[in-house]
């Protein structure tokens, strides 16, 4: 009989296997390279673009999107989708503004807002897991619900003048002539925590497993239900936190805030190389995806002579070129 141990090393096979390992990082790498190219394009074409503050502004202006996209990454990694995020962001700003207006202390308002977001996410998770409602639909209902609640609270915008909120909103952290805001710090912390959770905790790995094949994950004895409910809860929580960050950014609550943000968040995650079918992707990619979207906007503003409709076409073209190039780089032979 043949002893498998004495097999000579699989030379060809070894080589074959060496590639896939790196291939995992290919989408993220491609995004990073293309992002750098895009930045270069801006620097060459527009005076003043090379200013470091421009890059920092992309973070300042997109901190809330980043926070929301982190939650979305969890959901998409399990193969789901969350359309409710934009509305939950809006609802959060609304609730924050309402409670502050009624004189609630900031220390109470903050947890209440976060809890509200997590609860909505949790309920959608229950619907998806226990009642087998498709994520797209369950979260679409969540989207209607949250947006609807905003209008029930008020159709008008409510401004925030709570001193704590105002001081956080206006605080600028200066270093060497450049500044970021507290919101940027919050976003970065969220990113780091989430990246750690995904890479190093049992829960994080369950997320990937469920995305790889939920049926298998169930049979492997993983708690699929708990994981799925948890990711929607996390997404709800991140949306609420994103809403809080947005309320720092806008100092107001308004039912029309963050309209369409779900698509921005999904686009950011996917541009970052995460597959919508789940199971594959990295949080770092999501950060890059948000930067790509932010940079597109900056370039268009710098361009400064586009009509409203050409603006739309340009955004579309940027997305197109970006995604096709990314695709070309990562395409696998078969």
């Amino acid at each position, binding site marked *: *009989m043949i002893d*498998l141990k004495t097999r000579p090393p699989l030379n060809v096979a070894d080589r074959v*296997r060496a590639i896939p390992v790196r291939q995992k990082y290919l989408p993220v790498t491609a995004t990073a390279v293309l992002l750098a190219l895009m930045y270069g394009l801006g620097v060459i074409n527009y005076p003043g673009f090379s200013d470091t503050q421009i890059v920092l502004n992309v973070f300042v202006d997109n901190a809330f999107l980043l926070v929301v996209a982190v939650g979305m990454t969890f959901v998409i990694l399990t193969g789901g989708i969350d359309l409710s995020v934009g509305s939950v962001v809006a609802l959060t700003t609304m609730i924050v503004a309402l409670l502050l207006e009624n004189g609630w202390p900031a220390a109470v308002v903050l947890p209440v807002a976060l809890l509200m977001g997590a609860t909505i996410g949790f309920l959608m998770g229950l619907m998806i897991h226990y009642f087998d409602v498709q994520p797209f639909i369950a979260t679409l209902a969540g989207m209607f619900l949250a947006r609807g609640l905003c209008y029930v609270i008020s159709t008008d915008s409510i401004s925030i003048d709570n001193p704590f909120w105002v001081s956080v909103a206006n605080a600028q952290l200066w270093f060497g002539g450049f500044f970021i805001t507290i919101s940027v710090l919050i976003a970065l912390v969220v990113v780091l925590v989430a990246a750690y959770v995904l890479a190093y905790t049992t829960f994080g790995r369950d997320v990937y497993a469920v995305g790889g094949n939920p049926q298998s994950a169930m049979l492997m004895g993983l708690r699929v239900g708990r994981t799925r409910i948890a990711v929607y809860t996390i997404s709800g929580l991140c949306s609420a936190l994103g809403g809080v960050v947005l309320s720092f950014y806008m100092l107001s609550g308004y039912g029309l805030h963050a309209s369409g943000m779900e698509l921005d968040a999904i686009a950011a995650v996917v541009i970052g190389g995460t597959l919508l079918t789940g199971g594959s992707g990295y949080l770092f990619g999501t950060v890059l995806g948000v930067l790509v979207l932010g940079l597109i906007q900056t370039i268009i503003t710098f361009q400064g002579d586009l009509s409203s409709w050409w603006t739309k076409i340009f955004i579309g073209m940027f997305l197109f070129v970006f995604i096709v190039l990314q695709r070309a780089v990562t395409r696998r032979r078969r």
Partner: protein
Amino acid sequence: MSEPLLVMRGIGKRFPGVVALDGVDLRLYPGEVHALMGENGAGKSTLIKVLTGAYHHDQGEITLGGESVAFAGPHQAQQAGISTVYQEINLCPNLSVAENVLIGRAPTRFGRIRWSAVRRRAEELLDRLHLKIDVGSDLGTHSIAVQQMVAIARALDVDAKVLVLDEPTSSLDASEVDQLFGVMRGLKEEGIAILFVTHFLDQVYEIADRMTVLRNGRRVGEYRTADLSQLDLVGAMIGKELAALEDIEEAPRREVAALERGTPVVSADGLGRNGAIAPFSLAIHKGEVVGLAGLLGSGRTEVARLLFGADHADQGKIAVDGEPVALRGPQSAMRQKIAYCPENRRTDGLVEELTVRENIILALQADRGWARPVPRTRQDELVARYVKALDIRPADPEIPVRNLSGGNQQKVLLARWLITEPKLMILDEPTRGIDVGAKAEIQKLVVELSDGGMAVLFISAELEEVLRLSHKVAVLRDRKLVAELDNTDGLDTDRVMAAIASGGVA
């Protein structure tokens, strides 16, 4: 004997339209290997899924260590000490091998997974099965056989009282089966109860102490292996005395001389694909069965896929009936009347939510294009013919193929390609997971097809089967075609093994 560790009593389970289990009893004692036997669709996998809570049963009771249990899901079953390898490999292809072995119970410190420990532990476990692969690689990049081993390694890691193995050996070759049995014997000694499903009767007699036989969702009986002859076992499974078993055992070896080798139906000349298979040349003639032998991962599937155009060859030529052709994809291969039954029926073969009829008709229809539908009456006629010929059960062509048992799904796949009446049929592990009776049928079918002039490329992990059916055996090793052996009197499993081992003719 001591008290049974696990008792299932009066288990009933219905699916829409089918009674999969009807009052089934099962007893498992500590320190025994217990075989669960039955034809395709008898209810074995269903019973296992009921046991582990993957399905909820309608009737009956389960006790473990004397206590009544009802698991809400595999997670709870695992917690209670039941470790399971399911029939269709259920792992996550997107995760690394190491993670697949350990996910759900990876060692942590302060909530942080210790990745180095995970890798080490996975390597140890795979080592027990003598599998040396890079545990950091993605599981999905490995062949089914390797995945199967990984699934087993995963089950072995648990501190289990009961180990359930649903057809773990279906894609393993002889030496791997040996490794597995070695491990199973060790576990048995430790007092673990093992429930084992296989369609290989020899394996049952080699390893099992007792067995429970199912037929049509009912328990036929519980036997000591020593008390039941192979023939009686088959009789119990099938429900009648059957000579089929002897038929296969005594089937005459294929006569090479009887074959006229004119222009090959399909010939490959220096065909190869970088990183997948080294350039090889192979000719398959009208009415000839060519067997592919090799260890797992040796590149048999790669050969098949290149010949079908499923993968793109980056060197070499293919000729059909002597005419050079370019295979740009499965469609162009089908134009040349080449058919391919893939080994992984779930991912590469079936469309699970389509019906049996639709799955059978699929390739024929694809070939005609969407605008020229196969008339319904013709569909029904063709499908009925093959459902009958292959004895597909249940014989209702309008149920989703998902609801069929593994073996019957395999037959559906075969039927799909048979109705296209190919010149060359490539069968990649067509008998995996098929019961004795059906296996005999399929082997008979291969003989009939080749007698009728069809060329067949036959891939199987069972060397005996390859030798029994093939006129010629091509031997692969490490993704290289190393030998081509005519199936003359002198050829036996030992010589093929030797060829595999040495990389040439012994």
